[in-house]
């Protein structure tokens, strides 16, 4: 089976879906790049992270649309295209830019289906680069899914590996509801096996990349990678855990968490977002209200601090929850 990067897996998903359905379009800043440039090269960028490389060559300027730096119009145009029967993918270069276009996301696309009495759907995908780890500072490093998971009507997908990214993005593009698809910048070069034949991963089903007995670890996005490292270390001491990757934060696969907790009774939740009103605190609340009887110990949250994301390497490393903090939390919760 081919081993490819997260970046290439997303690229493949985009190619396959644009090939399959002529209604799929991609719009955003520099999604091809080069429009109006002096070199005349029209596949000059393929997105700031090279994720949409090659699409303009194949599908043309009508469907691969370089936009001005106008985030509200990028999301809004996606919304209008979706209402008019297309399946747009609006790329928000960095998740932080949600701050510029929040209205279009949470007052518009999230509400159309409900507010208009179910008379329409809004099949838009917002693809966006999320997370810290590349020293991009306070306005290019946030997770943001903590804010959007709170919005009724949005589906929130946060894949942790290339295989899931491809299968989930293809499902997102075919979904009739708006999906915000978070691609962690630090995961782009990470590789794993991705089959050549087509597959879809349903949105709303968690994955369990590790199984164990002593604890349940729920980790989101890049935190899955760090949790695996922590579990590798703990294995030396005979400590094992179920590792749950929710893959989508809404809908959330609560059942897998509850079932695991019936077995382990101990829960660690790892999230790169600040702690208050976060996905981590939300999952802790859900477990407290629906699966309290399974708990043998207080739930442990491993999160970023309640600060903006800092710039310097040492500070950013201290900000992002790492394998050591996850390992310590698991040791604490099983005591």
């Amino acid at each position, binding site marked *: 089976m081919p081993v490819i990067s997260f970046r290439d897996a997303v690229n493949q998903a985009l190619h396959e879906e644009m090939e399959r359905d002529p209604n799929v379009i991609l719009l955003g800043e520099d999604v091809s790049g080069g429009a109006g440039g002096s070199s005349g090269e029209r596949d000059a960028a393929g997105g700031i992270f090279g994720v949409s490389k090659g699409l303009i060559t194949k599908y043309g300027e*009508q469907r691969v649309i370089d936009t*001005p730096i106008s985030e509200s119009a990028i*999301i809004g*145009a996606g919304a209008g295209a979706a209402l*008019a029967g*297309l399946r747009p993918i609006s790329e928000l270069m960095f998740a932080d830019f949600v701050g510029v276009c929040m209205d279009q996301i949470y007052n518009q696309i999230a509400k159309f*289906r409900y507010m208009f*009495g*179910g*008379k329409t759907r809004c099949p838009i995908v917002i693809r966006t680069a999320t997370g810290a780890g590349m020293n991009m500072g306070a306005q290019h490093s946030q997770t943001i899914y903590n804010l959007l998971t709170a919005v009724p009507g949005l589906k929130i997908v946060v894949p942790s590996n290339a295989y899931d990214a491809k299968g989930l993005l293809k499902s997102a593009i075919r979904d009739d509801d708006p999906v915000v698809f978070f691609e962690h910048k630090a995961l782009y070069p990470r590789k794993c096996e991705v089959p050549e034949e087509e597959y879809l991963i349903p949105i709303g089903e968690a994955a369990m990349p590790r199984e164990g007995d002593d604890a349940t670890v729920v980790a989101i996005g890049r935190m899955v990678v760090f949790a695996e490292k922590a579990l590798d270390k703990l294995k030396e001491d005979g400590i094992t855990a179920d590792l749950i990757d929710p893959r989508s934060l809404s809908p959330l696969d609560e059942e897998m968490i509850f079932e695991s907790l019936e077995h382990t009774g101990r829960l660690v939740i790892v999230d790169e977002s600040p702690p208050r009103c976060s996905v981590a605190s939300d999952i802790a609340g859900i477990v407290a209200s629906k699966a309290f009887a399974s708990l043998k110990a207080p739930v442990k949250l491993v999160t970023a601090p309640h600060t903006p994301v800092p710039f310097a390497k040492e500070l950013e490393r201290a900000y992002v929850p790492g394998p050591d903090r996850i390992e310590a939390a698991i040791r604490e919760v099983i005591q």
Partner: protein
Amino acid sequence: MADLSRDQLLHAYRQMKTIREFEERLHLEIQTGEIPGFTHLYAGQEAVAVGVCEHLDDDDYIVSTHRGHGHCIAKGCDVIGMMKEIYGRADGLCKGKGGSMHIADFDKGMLGANAIVGGGPPIAVGSAIACKIRGDGKVSVAFGGDGSCNQGTVFEAMNMAVVLQVPTIFVFEDNGYSEHTGTSYAVGSNDIAGRAAGFGMPAVKCDGADFFAVYEAMGEAIERARSGGGPSTVECTITRFYGHFEGDPQNYRAKDEVERFRETKDCLKNFRKNVEKNGLLDISDLDKIDTEVLDLIEEAVKAAKAAPTPKPEDVLTDVYINYA
């Protein structure tokens, strides 16, 4: 003057009259307390909605505003379904989930009234992208007020429409007030069309109380859009006969302002004068329409009052997950 058949003229008048009577009746009904929420009446601005939408088919798109009843009626939304929606009834156009500010009818190309000022124009650019990709000559119209022309989203939408050369027509209805603040104060240049022209598209101004002026200005813009000539802007100077919302004491308006405008800027009176002077229609035909429209509005109010209210459990439907 635009070349309109007798049937077209009668239809345009009927649409304007329907909007007027719909709003005048709402103004009275709201005072009974039976209509919930927040309502913004379109009375006085009818020639704009109708002058625009008489050029459009069901396959053309519009996005509307918080003051959207007129756009909905002009685009062909069912008047009875609209009235039921405004009353919050289960069989309203949006099943009582939208209300006055969120009426939509996708079969009619009406992509939704929008309660966020400036929320609609980016969406109209998107539906115009769809028109351009399909190459079917359809267009997308973004209605907005003088208030919306100060929103960044509208600037983004106008620029993107020019950059992508999509068939969007931005229609600005300058009714003199952004909520309770005058256009002359809030629009720095006091020239909305001039702003649009600055983005690189043809932009014209017209008298929004004159159906024929709006129809003609829109005709050129739509013809350009349908034939691949890209976006345009039409700025219509108009007034509203009521407040920003129903219940607005309108302390910002001179006492005789509305009265004066009802005398001089009433598009229905203007239309009647015009067709009579030019011998285009018999006034008796218009009187007949007046009676029919009043009957329709009466029927709509009766139907809305009698319609079933939504069931409480319907709060959980029309969303992919509710975590209930």
